[in-house]
């Protein structure tokens, strides 16, 4: 669990001298995790992790022929949104007594629906909104409330990394701002708000930056293996294509949500020659691959990444065939986690359609993502520049030290 990590200790110390109440909130948010992980009612639609919903939502946009699948996804999750607030409410109320928690969650969900808005951004938007609505009168007070809110938000969906990353990032920023003393509180408050709202723009710009960085690595005649549907990776490849780079792409199918189909479709539209593989054909085709591109749900302190299920094994195959593995991820996905093994993370549960009814008593691994250790990654393209995994951990330590 992430609280094992060094940074957690740091965090704790720092919070301690920040303000006592956090402790208890933090703990509460901790001990509520267990009863959040095994989801209350094990029916598929409720079992779906919020993280997975977001993914589904974001995929539910664009291209006609994808719509069919999108529809499927949406209908599957149709039930979810209205149950969410309930969970949220319970979670929220349990976390922090203040009624504002509701607004945070709703705010968050509101932003979350926006197609090309990353979760982290949504979170920060939500927090910004929270600040606006809060009637704290001192910086300290504001911070405390904000902390509560963010914890609520985090605890609401423990599975989403970029969510917590976003919250942490913003909180960190708030504390740092408050550190520089402002003569009047409102100026500070305004500044915070206006920062938060700007954040969406940042995230967009970040994507563009990464595309720019990444496309340099695509050379003529190269073959690129892509796994999962990452908007950043897509942007990179699109840009490379528009710069008349000649390359071809191999897409993994990405069972069960068929991310590959959609991805290949997008690429085909910009005229990039693309080929679909079933997930198990990766090792088979790896010899003709020049580089592997993946996105990331979160980049952890070790420099490793957490990404859609299957990334790990692809990275392993690539590594033993000496193919570079490039990760494209915005810097707000850097999370203060230090997973030591796969099971270290709260699993993001998702439905898996096998087409045939699964015999009773057979268990199904329904986790949506895995953890890829840093030694299997070559480089990360982030809006902070092209980084080696070791640099990432540096950055995080710098930030939270």
């Amino acid at each position, binding site marked *: 669990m992430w609280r094992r990590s060094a940074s957690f200790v740091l965090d704790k110390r720092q919070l301690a001298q920040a303000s006592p109440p956090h402790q208890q909130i933090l703990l509460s948010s901790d001990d509520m995790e267990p009863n959040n992980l095994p989801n209350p009612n094990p029916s598929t639609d409720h079992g779906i992790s919020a993280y997975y919903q977001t993914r589904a939502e974001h995929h539910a946009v664009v291209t006609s022929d994808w719509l069919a699948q999108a529809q499927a996804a949406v209908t599957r999750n149709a039930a979810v949104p209205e149950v969410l607030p309930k969970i949220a409410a319970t979670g929220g109320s349990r976390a922090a007594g203040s009624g504002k928690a509701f607004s945070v969650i709703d705010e968050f969900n509101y932003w979350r629906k926006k197609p090309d808005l990353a979760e982290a951004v949504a979170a920060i938007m939500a927090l910004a909104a929270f600040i606006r609505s809060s009637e704290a009168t001192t910086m300290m007070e504001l911070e405390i409330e904000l902390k509560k809110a963010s914890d609520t938000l985090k605890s609401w969906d423990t599975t989403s990394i970029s969510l917590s990353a976003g919250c942490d990032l913003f909180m960190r920023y708030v504390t740092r701002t408050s550190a520089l003393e402002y003569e009047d509180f409102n100026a500070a408050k305004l500044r915070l708000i206006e*920062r938060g709202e*700007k954040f969406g723009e940042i995230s967009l710009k970040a994507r563009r*930056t990464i595309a720019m*960085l990444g496309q340099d690595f695509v050379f003529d005649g190269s073959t690129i293996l892509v796994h999962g549907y990452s908007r950043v990776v897509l942007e990179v490849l699109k840009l490379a294509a*528009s710069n008349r780079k000649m390359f071809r792409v191999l897409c993994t199918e990405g069972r069960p949500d068929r991310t590959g189909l959609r991805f290949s479709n997008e690429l085909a539209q910009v005229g990039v020659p693309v080929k679909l593989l079933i997930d198990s054909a990766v090792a088979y085709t790896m010899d003709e691959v020049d580089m592997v591109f993946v996105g990331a749900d979160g980049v952890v302190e070790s420099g490793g990444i957490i990404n859609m299920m299957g990334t790990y094994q692809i990275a392993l195959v690539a590594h033993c065939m000496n193919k570079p593995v490039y990760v494209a991820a915005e810097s707000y996905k850097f999370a203060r986690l230090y997973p030591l093994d796969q099971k270290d993370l709260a699993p993001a549960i998702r439905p898996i359609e096998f087409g045939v009814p699964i015999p009773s008593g057979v268990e199904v691994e329904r986790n949506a993502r895995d953890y890829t250790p840093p030694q299997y990654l070559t480089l990360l393209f982030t809006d*902070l*520049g092209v*980084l*080696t995994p*070791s640099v990432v951990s540096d950055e995080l330590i710098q930030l939270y030290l």
Partner: protein
Amino acid sequence: MPDVQTLVNDFVLKLKRRKIEGSQASAKQTAELLRSVVSQQRLPYINQATVLLDAVRAVGEQLIAANPVELAVGNIVRRILHIIREEDLTSTASAMEGLSLSANSDDDDNYEREDHQALSAAAVAAAARSTLRAPSLQTLLEGIPESASAPHPSSSGGDSEGKSKSAERSSRSKKLKHDVIEAINELIQDIETCHEQISEQAVGLIHQNEVILTLGRSRTVKEFLCAANEKKRSFRVFIAEGAPRYLGHVLAKELVAKGLQTTVITDSAVFAMISRVNMVIVGAHAIMANGGVIAPVGINMVALAAQRHAVPFVVVAGSHKLCPLYPHNPEVLLNDFKSPSDLLDFGEFSDCMDFSTSGGSPRLHVVNPAFDFIPSKLVSLFITDTGGHSPSYIYRLIADYYSADDFVVRRRSTS
């Protein structure tokens, strides 16, 4: 004092025609040229930093284009750009604060938007948050142009221009240029003395009765070994001759003249010998941002052999060879293909290349690449004039030496 432009053209021609031998020479000359550029640049009342930056960029762009193979040139240009920013920053910091950031960082931003296509990666990355240090999470939120009034520790040349409207700018107008030139002089000093700096560390690495293996001839390596020798270390040197140019023979001569115990072997004998070797020391053409090394051809093989027998593989190079770029596509982009005549005698093989009788297509191809690329995982240690570093630490050095928005040197039209 001749006109700068002619100096520049002259130097560009030299570079184009590969008339400058070796990284150090080109680095030094580049620095000197840019120094004269800076000193001759007449500065306006305001925005000195930008003016300087643009002037240097304009020249640097030409220089880099002139000989893309010689990375040292680009490195120096970027170093100097960095210097200017730093100097400007310090002087700004000393200057008064609290002025609202001006429009020009703004239009910087619009500028990015309108033609970010043209501008390549790093430039955008930089402008996305114009900070002096490499962008970091810390500044993720702060770097926004419309940011409010608080002065940030990490505000850049770009930002400082805003403050430049302040009154007592004039007092500093001389100072900035002066400081920059001072700094450049230091840089040149460093380049000149880098060999000594590196050699000083020799004794620490080379121990009594060790066997050192090197390939080809690198001046840095030579100095390094000689330095150890002067310190009364007795050790033996294996020299792989370094086909096709056989500079190893030259090195052997020099070392023997200095009284070192020297053995010359063929390149192909490296693996046979490596088991008896205690350490491999080679020079480099350039050190890339990911710790990979571009070095004379054949060294990759040595590195592999060394890894196989767990022999430490040490790369010695002056810090002017430290390149902030990544080897996107090493074998092509950063390689230089020399004339085949190093390998074959044209006369002997001329009949193999008689296209009239061989159906018009050359049947005999001779490829003579100048460089190898050695991935960082094969390198055990870098020794630069700033000390020894592990490959994973290189990015730090780069962060110190270069500022992110100089990775791509492009003339920024300030209009």
